[in-house]
């Protein structure tokens, strides 16, 4: 209970900050980010306390939905996601302190940033449908206003429009979901819903609606198209929040509905999340690996990670439906740990992208390069994030991937043919996603930070202020620690896992070492990150020593060899586009009908040869452009009804009257 008071106070502080920031102008606004940071610390501390002690808190206020009231509840699940969110908020706030208030467009950002943070926290502690959707919509609203902060840029206006419309669609779906859960009697409080879970038919509809609602917010294919528009359009620390944290709120919504409110699952519930998730994972990275905009690449990679999480959730549903609780625990732990890890490295990467943008003013990879020399610290942090995002050991991204693979490997034991035949396909797609992720981030880091600068701006770049480096460094540290101590994090999840799937991972210490991450039992699957890291460290150290003992330590700096014909112009380097070429050849033709055309001028013509690539985004064409055109076209047709003569309007009236009369005449 005191927990809720504390977080309530912190939320109030955030709201107050937002309000004040709208009213005051000028230097006082500099206080916004520090206040947000403090509030985030308080909220995170409360969440941590609840998660570790299991001190669940509930409250009920006579406001909110009439006759139902406002129900609040802070249980282990909300607490875990609260930690995720407030970690992100803290990092973003610290980063925000480093802004040059003269240059950045702060007056349009600072009032909404605290509101955004507060809304996300509110979603987690909401314990009735109204409060949930209320704060959910508030979250969308605040982030919309943040996306459109650079309002004079038509692109970000368009992004904001697409974003909020998609958010509205998602909210409609969630309205349906909760309508189905609450039933005609209107039992909107989650306790009431838990007491009377819906019947199978309704449950199916609710699941579909929840998948649409949360999927659209999280970027599940095919509802993802808004995300790469909106996330990059916002200021970078907000992009970090939207990509790293807000998508997790969507995950939370799905977990809350599918695992908590919807009652015992049927096995086939698992199929939609698994299939869509796997598609999302692969497609998201195919987008990412072909895109040339730094922040958009990161946004696409967010889509991929959300897909991965949904696959894990789907597997957890399948195992749980079949009573295989240990496997369900592995899958669920994979999902939750990936939520945490992704929030860390994606926030880190977006902050890094923000640093690059701030230093060079450019987001296009082909205009960057060589930043490892100009912004050394940022380069290190970004490298950590990139490797973590490529799911490589010993960083945190791999811990959850490892657990997920263990869950996939256990999937063939499921009795339903559909599921265990799906398992190899899922495994292959996830492996493909992992490999593509590595390719994607090698590409990003290689073009942006390595090599030689491709533009004047990149050449004159300079590292960001210290406080922003601290924000990134903290996240980088978390990525490393999370990679080494993943088993401890998994232990902390135990209460949630028991709540949701009825089992937890084997306790620490049942393995060879305390830090060993164990799936099922030690004899079956073990991943002991600290030991491996330790041995890698020893091995590399001995190598260094031995090599330096044996070898001539002479080192000479010279021009690049480059097979004998080095070219001083940085234009000869591999660009992001050229790096993507092999992958485009292999996957692009299938996924995006990629076509390469070379216009070769005839001999004697001095014009240069032109090479162009055409990619078609089928999803956008089919699900976004086409309906948009349809609505406008229909509205134009209907618009003639605005210009009829009065007599014709009378005809309409008369027709309505006669039709109704005819109906009355025929009905008895």
């Amino acid at each position, binding site marked *: 209970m005191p927990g809720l008071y504390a977080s309530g106070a912190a939320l109030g502080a955030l709201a107050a900050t937002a309000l004040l920031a709208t009213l005051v102008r000028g230097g006082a606004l500099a206080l916004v980010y520090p206040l947000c940071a403090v509030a985030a610390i308080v909220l995170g501390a409360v969440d941590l306390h609840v998660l570790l002690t299991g001190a669940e808190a509930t409250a009920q206020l006579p406001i909110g939905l009439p006759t139902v009231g406002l129900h609040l509840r802070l249980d282990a699940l909300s607490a875990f996601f609260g930690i995720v969110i407030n970690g992100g908020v803290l990092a973003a706030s610290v980063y925000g302190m480093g802004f040059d208030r003269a240059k950045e467009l702060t007056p349009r950002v600072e009032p909404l940033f605290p509101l955004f943070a507060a809304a996300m926290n509110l979603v987690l502690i909401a314990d009735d449908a109204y409060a949930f959707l209320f704060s959910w919509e508030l979250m969308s609203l605040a982030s919309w206003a943040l996306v459109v902060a650079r309002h004079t840029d038509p692109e970000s206006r368009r992004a904001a429009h697409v974003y909020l419309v998609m958010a509205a669609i998602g909210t409609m779906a969630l309205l349906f979901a909760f309508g189905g859960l609450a039933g005609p009697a209107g039992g909107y409080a989650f306790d009431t819903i838990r007491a009377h879970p819906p019947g199978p038919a309704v449950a199916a509809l609710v699941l579909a609606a929840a998948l649409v609602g949360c999927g659209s917010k999280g970027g599940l294919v095919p509802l993802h198209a808004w995300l790469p528009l909106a996330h990059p359009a916002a200021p970078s620390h907000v992009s970090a929040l939207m990509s790293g944290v807000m998508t997790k709120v969507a995950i939370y919504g799905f977990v809350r509905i599918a695992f908590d409110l919807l009652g015992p699952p049927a096995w086939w519930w698992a199929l939609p999340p698994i299939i869509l998730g796997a598609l999302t994972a692969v497609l998201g990275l195919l987008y990412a690996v072909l895109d040339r905009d730094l922040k958009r690449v990161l946004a696409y990679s967010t889509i991929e990670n959300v897909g991965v999480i949904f696959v894990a959730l789907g597997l957890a549903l399948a195992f749980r439906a079949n009573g295989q609780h240990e496997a369900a625990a592995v899958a669920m732990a994979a999902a939750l740990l990936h939520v945490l890890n992704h929030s860390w490295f994606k926030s880190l990467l977006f902050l890094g992208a923000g640093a690059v943008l701030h230093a060079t003013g450019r987001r296009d990879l082909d205009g960057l390069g060589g930043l*490892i020399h100009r912004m050394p610290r940022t380069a290190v942090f970004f*490298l950590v994030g990139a*490797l973590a995002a490529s799911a*490589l*050991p010993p960083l945190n991204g*791999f811990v959850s*991937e*490892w657990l997920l693979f*263990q869950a996939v*490997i256990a999937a*063939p034991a499921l009795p339903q043919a559909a599921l*265990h*035949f799906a398992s*190899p396909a899922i*495994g*292959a*797609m996830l*492996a493909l996603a*992992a*490999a*593509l992720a590595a*390719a994607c*981030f*090698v590409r990003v*880091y*290689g073009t942006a930070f*390595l*090599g*030689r600068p491709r533009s004047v701006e990149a050449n004159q770049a300079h590292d960001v202020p210290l406080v922003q480096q601290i924000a990134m460094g903290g996240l980088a540290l978390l990525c490393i620690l999370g990679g080494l101590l993943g088993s401890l994090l998994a232990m902390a999840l135990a209460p949630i896992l028991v709540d949701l799937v009825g089992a937890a991972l084997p306790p620490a210490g049942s393995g060879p070492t305390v830090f*060993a991450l164990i799936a099922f039992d030690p*004899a*079956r699957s*073990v*991943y*002991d990150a600290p*030991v491996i890291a330790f041995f*890698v460290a020893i*091995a*590399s150290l001995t*190598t260094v020593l031995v*090599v330096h003992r*044996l070898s*001539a330590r*002479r*080192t*000479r*700096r*010279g*021009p*690049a*060899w*480059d097979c004998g014909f080095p070219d001083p112009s940085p234009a000869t*380097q*591999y660009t992001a586009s*050229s*790096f*993507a070429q*092999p*992958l485009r050849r*292999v996957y692009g033709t299938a996924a995006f009908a990629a076509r390469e055309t070379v216009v070769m001028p005839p001999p004697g013509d001095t014009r240069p040869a032109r090479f162009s690539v055409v990619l078609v985004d089928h999803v956008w064409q089919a699900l976004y452009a086409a309906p948009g055109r349809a609505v406008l076209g229909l509205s134009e047709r209907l618009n003639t009804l605005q210009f009829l003569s009065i007599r014709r309007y009378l005809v309409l009236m008369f027709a309505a009257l006669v039709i109704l009369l005819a109906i009355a005449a025929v009905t008895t």
Partner: protein
Amino acid sequence: MTGDLVVQFLAQGAQMTFVLLIAPLAVGIVRRVKARLMRRQGPPLLQAYFDLAKLLRKESVIAETASWLFRSAPYLIFALTWVAAALVPSFASGLMFNWAADVVALVALLGAARALLALAGMDVGTSFGGIGSSREMMIATLAEPAMMLIVLTLAIAAGTTRLAGVADFFIAEPFAVRVSLALSLIALIIVALAENARIPVDNPATHLELTMVHEAMVLEYSGRHLALIEAASHLKLVLYISLLICLFAPFGMAPANAGVAGWAIGLAAWSVKLLIGAALLGVWEISIAKMRVFRLPDFVGIAFVFGFLAILLAFLTRGVLA
């Protein structure tokens, strides 16, 4: 207990050193066999050792545009590959590392080494480094799904993803789910060829710019850095051969906590198998030509198809469908 731990530690260390020492020899054998079959004299068996020693003694030239990443990468790559090699049960299944990580982690470690190498390839900012890196990563995207399917098959068969566990299982019942094993063997061989940049995926001997993959990435390296990279690739070759051995021909491997004697036997058996494997690789390499880069999807695709078939057959034989 502690004494036992010390013994374990020593055994592990011995395995690591032994793997390290034998690796160049394996490479030497491959080269020698190829040369012989091509009616050439060929280099001496120990040529690889000489090369490494030579490289170590030479000064290393580093491009001006290179960063710290370029210089530190070789050490990390070498260390990662070495530890990965130590994870594969070679002559005994019960060594301590076998408890530290399973095959998924193994693949991931190699992936980390690959990513570092690709980054190093892009660091200098030349066109060839980029070619190598992009193609390497592309090949990886083709190989990893197949690898995952193989892992899945083994896990279905042996009920564990710990290599040692799998090895023990196959020692116990060598003829479990044969068909799918045969299929996944082929798949794993193809993957191994791709991962080690062997013909037909890549030609370790060539420096013809447009066909290079692995060599293109390391083009800027020289001296001790090059030596480390070379050693790492040797280790990787041994790693994959002994992976094939431990999964498909584990006989003779010493079981967990077997005494020194058992280890000696296992060691002998493993070395023989390793060298045979190297020889077979040599034979294979002269009997087939290098492929165009964009034919690779088809080639590695075979591995994917076989891996998938293997799983389906595994379902049948394990009666999961019943």
